[in-house]
């Protein structure tokens, strides 16, 4: 009798074990960059695991290798990632090469409206072709290049009066790129608290996307355009316009006059290190670092302030960062991955996302009356997101990025040739890419 009961129990357990996975418990892998927000997402995703029964794994790759690693994964049809939080510029490739699944029907079926998200993030992270209602991602992490400054240094009476004497205005948040350079110049090589400090940490990195993500903040604001607004892929006179040349010259001048020695290959993490160790008065970086700066024991709290990329003579823009979350078409768990996106799009989850340090792109979160005062950098984030502009998001994004890295780095850091020559060469490089693509 006992034996009979035991066999019945074992059989029941076996049946349950066989049936359970068919009901739930898919293993989902989410791929993203290895940075602070990714850790916040692990924390947030525990709620999804608890509610859905699916198991979440995460594949995070450091930024310098992120594009290389993940684009190779997508191009090879790899099944590693079920969900991809890919860079905004990958959306064209993801859509046209069939790496991402189109989400329009899913959004309609689940009452997820793109109108509920910040318009710039929808255009930047989700749409392909741009400006059309074809969605390949849900805006996941709003990000933009902005500036951090040493508020405590700016508030020093001796420095304030010296600055006013020299430049005839208050030492305050700059209203233009020219003012920003003045401030950086003022701090360069200055002795503060017995330490030599420098003006600004800016993006100069050569290997991945660093200097492009930096220099565009100057180029856009001096009049650079990616192409003729009335004739796509017509580059000459727009990429290398007089304004663009002036913008590139400005960035080089800023690098030459006002950056720490040895900063010839700096990107996000080097800038953070320089700022947190008290080396620089100003830091260019994506907004994702602001929660970390605010919490830092050395430079956090009231010691730091934040401001959007200042305007230039040709306009007021800032380089868009951030990413959307997509379902990889090669995944064997597409339904579970879509379930994750449905869960992630909920307003209460988006609110938690912001509280954990993730920049939500949901309007209900950022337009909440309490949002702007919820963190000292929240208003700057909103102001910055209102002026974003992005790099090419074409399928040939990587082929377009590399020559820009090359040409700009060679001129700004190595001082090879003139700004005009660098941009003329960039026009040739990009023209060749578009010719190869059959777009010209």
């Amino acid at each position, binding site marked *: 009798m006992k034996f009979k009961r035991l066999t019945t129990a074992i059989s029941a357990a076996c049946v349950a074990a066989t049936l359970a996975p068919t009901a739930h418990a898919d293993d989902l892998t989410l791929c993203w960059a290895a940075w602070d927000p990714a850790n916040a997402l692990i924390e947030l995703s525990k709620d999804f695991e608890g509610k859905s029964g699916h198991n979440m794994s995460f594949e995070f790759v450091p930024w310098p290798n992120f594009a*290389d690693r993940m*684009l*190779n994964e997508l*191009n090879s049809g790899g099944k590693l990632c079920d969900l991809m939080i890919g860079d905004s510029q990958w959306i064209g490739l993801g859509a046209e*090469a069939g790496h991402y699944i189109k989400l329009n029907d899913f959004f309609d079926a689940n009452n997820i409206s793109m109108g509920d998200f910040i318009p710039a993030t929808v255009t930047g992270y989700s749409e392909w072709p741009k400006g059309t209602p074809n969605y390949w991602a849900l805006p996941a992490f709003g990000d933009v290049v902005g500036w951090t400054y040493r508020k405590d240094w700016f508030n020093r009476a001796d420095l304030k009066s010296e600055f006013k004497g020299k430049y005839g205005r208050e030492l305050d948040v700059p209203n233009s790129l020219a003012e920003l350079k003045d401030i950086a110049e003022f701090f360069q090589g200055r002795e503060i608290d017995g330490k*030599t400090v420098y003006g600004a940490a800016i993006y100069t990195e*050569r*290997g991945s996307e660093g200097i492009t993500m930096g220099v565009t903040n100057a180029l856009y604001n001096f009049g650079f355009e990616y192409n003729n607004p009335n004739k796509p892929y017509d580059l000459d006179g727009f990429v290398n316009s007089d304004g663009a040349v002036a913008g590139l010259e400005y960035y080089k001048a800023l690098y030459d006059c006002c950056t*720490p*020695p*040895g*900063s*010839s*290959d700096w990107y996000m993490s080097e800038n953070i290190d320089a700022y947190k160790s008290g*080396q620089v008065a100003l830091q260019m970086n994506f907004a994702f670092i602001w929660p970390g700066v605010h919490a830092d024991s050395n430079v956090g709290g009231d010691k730091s302030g934040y401001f959007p990329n200042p305007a230039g003579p040709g306009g007021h823009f800032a380089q868009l960062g951030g990413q959307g979350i997509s379902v990889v078409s090669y995944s064997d768990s597409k339904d579970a991955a879509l379930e994750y996106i449905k869960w992630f799009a909920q307003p209460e989850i988006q609110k938690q996302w912001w509280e954990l340090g993730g920049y939500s792109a949901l309007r209900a979160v950022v337009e909440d009356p309490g949002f702007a005062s919820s963190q000292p950098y929240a208003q700057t984030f909103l102001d910055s997101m209102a002026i974003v502009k992005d790099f090419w998001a074409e399928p040939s994004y*990587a*082929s377009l990025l*590399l020559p820009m890295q*090359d040409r700009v*780095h*060679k001129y700004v*850091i*190595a*001082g*090879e040739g003139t700004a005009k020559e660098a941009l003329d060469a960039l026009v040739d490089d990009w023209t060749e890419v578009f010719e*190869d693509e059959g777009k010209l």
Partner: protein
Amino acid sequence: MANGIIERAAKSTPAPFARKIKGLSDRAIAWIFITPTIIILLAVNIFPLIWTIWLSFTNYKANRPNADVKWIGLRNYERILTDSDIWLTMQATAHFLIWTLVLQVLIGFALAWLINQKFKGNDLWTTIIVLPMMLSPAVVGNFWTFLYQPQIGLFNYVFAFLTQSDPTSFSMIGDVALAPWSIVIVDTWMWTPFVMLICLAGLRSIPDYIYEAAECDRASKWRQFWTITVPMVLPFLMLAVLFRGIENFKMFDLVVQLTGGGPGSTTELTSINLKREAFEKWRTGYSSAYAIILFVTVFGLASIYVKALNKVKER
């Protein structure tokens, strides 16, 4: 005796197998044995080479497997040979190759000559000197970036101390003029011990009686060095140059970690440039042509060098 062995082998061969190979010629049996090797070689060496040659005449991009592949003749070769950027990377590679070889040969030989003198602690010094080459190039590249840091780097501090200058006044890996030398210094630091070990083997292979005979003939130390030591160590030295030359022609990891090829393209060696073309820009056809050009260059130079080396050995 031989017949006995053959008979024993024949007896120990299983009958079914013996029946199967009975009647096969020696030539046929030889083919059976070498065919798997030939197939593997064809699959992993010859086929990729032929495939690369074919790709070099096309516009193929590996990240667009479904796109049309067009035959474009010699256009890739023409583009490469007329591209000023490629010639700059060739110049950077030549600078790196020549200076590392010169410095490593001179310092390596000098160290070997010193170590070859019998003195107390000889073994300990040998071990200390060879330590750098036991490290991973990626690790070496990484920690030298810290040594070269203008604000905290030991290299800058030592140099500034010796020259009474400001350590932050120069940046070894950020300055266009200094960066090519920064990679030469690190590679020399790391690989001179290798040249030293080969030279040491050469020095220790010279029999003492030759020097004793020279002493009897009242030859000066200087004369002994130039007429005995140098000629007898020369084949070893040339071998070391060959090894280091090949290694440094394909140098990648150390320089990527150290400078990433910058600033500008001042330290972008051909291997780094090729990798960027092939796996970042995904210009597979173009990079195949580039690889073929490099292969022919290295193969040609190495062949000439090996012939010279054989002549020296025959002397």
